[in-house]
């Protein structure tokens, strides 16, 4: 029982950030039908913006990171993230509305590469210290593991964001956004400002990404170029598919389920010295396969 609880706690700690990144992926997909592989860098770039605020725009060497400016840096990062999302839509995505989904996907990958190269050029390919909002944690009696306060912060943010978004899509603007994604021409005929709706969706995705970047960097107390893409994006995407790319709740659940699955695989492989190479990845794809065979749209996925 203790081991099960440990696996659950570790899994949720790992899966929480995945859910946050997956939520952004699901939002973009639900609103625009685009798989956004730039979501990771839309998270990392605002995190670097926050880093600059906290170091007083000092980049060289090992600058002192002022945790006192963390909240100011957070506001800057969120605003920056929203603007970044809108910019990506205006400069890249909007120009590709008539192309195939694969082309749009490749375009977002190009955006990821572009941002990564800027990060490496400006900040070098090295780890930089990044603070958490709340340090430390607490122990659950009888379970030999610490629950980090940082994880609680992520879960609270995650729950709030998922609930808000789920409610939003029940409101008239939310329905209009869905209509824009499904039938943009018909939506426009109904008076829906399609371009503005898409910008709103990308702006919201940018906000979510910025928050994911701040919390993702805080998880390891380190920020580096392409952090969110290389560390969280692919598992987050897998989790979002598992939960359902068109469901906000599904994206959250998928990330958490994935985190627990991977933790369980690691625990079993380690405790029993099975020596199975790539056990976490194997478990992930087995679960994904099982879910998609019986629920091709994911656990909670459905059309509007």
């Amino acid at each position: 029982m203790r081991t099960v609880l440990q696996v659950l706690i570790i899994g949720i700690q790992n899966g929480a950030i995945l859910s946050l990144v997956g939520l952004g992926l699901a939002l973009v997909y639900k609103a625009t039908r685009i798989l956004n592989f730039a979501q990771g860098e839309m998270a990392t770039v605002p995190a670097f913006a926050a880093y600059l605020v906290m170091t007083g725009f000092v980049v060289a060497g090992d600058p002192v990171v002022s945790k006192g400016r963390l909240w100011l840096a957070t506001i800057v990062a969120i605003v920056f993230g929203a603007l970044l999302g809108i910019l990506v839509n205006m400069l890249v995505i909007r120009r590709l509305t008539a192309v195939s989904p694969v082309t749009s996907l490749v375009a977002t990958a190009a955006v990821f590469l572009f941002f990564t190269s800027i990060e490496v050029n400006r900040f070098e390919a090295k780890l930089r210290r990044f603070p958490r909002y709340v340090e430390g944690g607490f122990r659950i009696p009888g379970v030999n593991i610490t629950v980090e306060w940082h994880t609680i912060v992520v879960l609270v943010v995650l729950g709030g964001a998922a609930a808000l978004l789920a409610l939003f899509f029940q409101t008239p603007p939310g329905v209009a956004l869905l209509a824009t994604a499904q039938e943009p021409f018909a939506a426009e005929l109904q008076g829906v400002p399609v371009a503005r709706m898409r910008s709103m969706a990308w702006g919201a995705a940018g906000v979510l990404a910025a928050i994911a970047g701040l919390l993702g960097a805080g998880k390891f107390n380190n920020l580096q170029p392409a952090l969110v893409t290389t560390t969280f994006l692919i598992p987050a995407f897998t989790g979002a598919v598992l939960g359902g790319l068109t469901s906000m709740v599904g994206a959250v659940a998928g990330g958490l389920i994935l985190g627990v699955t991977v933790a369980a695989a690691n625990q079993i492989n380690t405790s029993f010295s099975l020596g199975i190479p790539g056990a976490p990845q194997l478990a992930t794809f087995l679960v994904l396969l099982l879910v998609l065979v019986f629920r091709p749209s994911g656990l909670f996925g459905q059309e509007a």
Partner: protein
Amino acid sequence: MISLLVALLLVAVACGQKPGVHVASSNGGVLAGQSSNTDTGSADVGASTDAGSATASGGATSSGGTSSGGTTTGGSKSGATKSGTSGGTSAASGPVKPTGHDRTGVSTDKITLALHAPVTGAAPLPVTAFEKERDLFWRYLTEVKHEKVLGRSQVEVQFQDDKYQPGTAVQACRELGASSFLVVGGGGTDQIQACGRYAESAHIPYLSAGVTETGLTGLQWYYSLSMSYKQQGKLLAQYVAKNFAGKKVAAVITDTPNFDDAVAGWEAGVKAAGLNYYKTLRHPKSDTSWYNTFANELQSNKVDVVYILTAPVDYIRFAQQANGQGFKPQFVGVGISMGLNAVLGSGCPNVDGGIFFSPFPGLDWAKANLPDYFAAAQHAGISDPDDLGVALWGLAQSQYEMFKRYGATYGNDLTREDFRKLVETQANLHTGVFPDQSYTPSSHFGSNQVHVLKADCSVKQYKTLATFATGF
């Protein structure tokens, strides 16, 4: 009379100068422009080494039990015994005529060398150090000391980032090898192994600090400049037994085939040293889900000492997550990049006290023992010389020692084939930075010494505990 003179002239022209005369003259001539890639080195492909043999450094045993050099500092060296290799240090009389034809990267006035290393990817190495310091040694030699290298006044060092990926590393080595005399692998086991095998197929001399022996044993064009991980594993077990007697020990190692020999060497060392051993945990490469699980597993089983062999980023994250769980083991290990101060910049305070073997001493030792390095840095306008620069300096010194031996044997006519043939007969290549190297035709793993570094987070630098150690 005139007819006779003309006839004599015609005869002289027809006969011409005998081939090689200009080379056989004192210090040889430089055959400019002859940079063909003809394949002539294969004649020397001989017996393969024992797979996984622990004897290296030209036949000397890799660890001599207790050794006076085990805990000393300040540049003392021991244990680099002279093996019964042939060739010694120089030819008996006058230069020998080179028989090779491949002079890639060699011109009348310049030798071009190359270096690849993981700058982006899983190893947080600052790119500026490679950019600024990759050729510092050579510039100091030629511009400040006004020395020539095999008659050339310029040595250029090209560099490419291999992105910590074997495929990218091979591509980098291919591009670098097309215009450089030799290629050096700066770090990253999989990348070095991949490049080493490519260099073998392309007949390019390839040097690196010691990493895996898998896939590199028996290669004729590869030279290891320090002990392999497998060799160091046994030494590390001795160190742990001596300094952490009675403690429970475990290992966390990336699950890649190129670390299998390191695991084997370590576990053999554990057995020989009689350590209280829990187990070896292997984690998938490029996976970030294992930190808490492994930390919890080790903590639950009361492990005190952890041998960690992973990418530096994984080490930093694992230490951070373990600390968050209240698990603060003594980290020990081997590995080229783990002992760099850059790791402490972002890893502290979680990696404080970590002890690692390294092919190069720390910056603190260099300040006391390597004045030329700091003079060179000052001359080059480098305000913050670092330990990565010391490593690059040591790598260059090793190459310089090889070139000096080459010059004493063959003169200035530098060919890849002859360089390769010569190095594998050399003993006691001493640089005073990297461990002493001795090679034989059957073993290109040329060292039996390590430096020992300990992380000091109060100054975010590794302190040098021991240099040129052969046992503990």
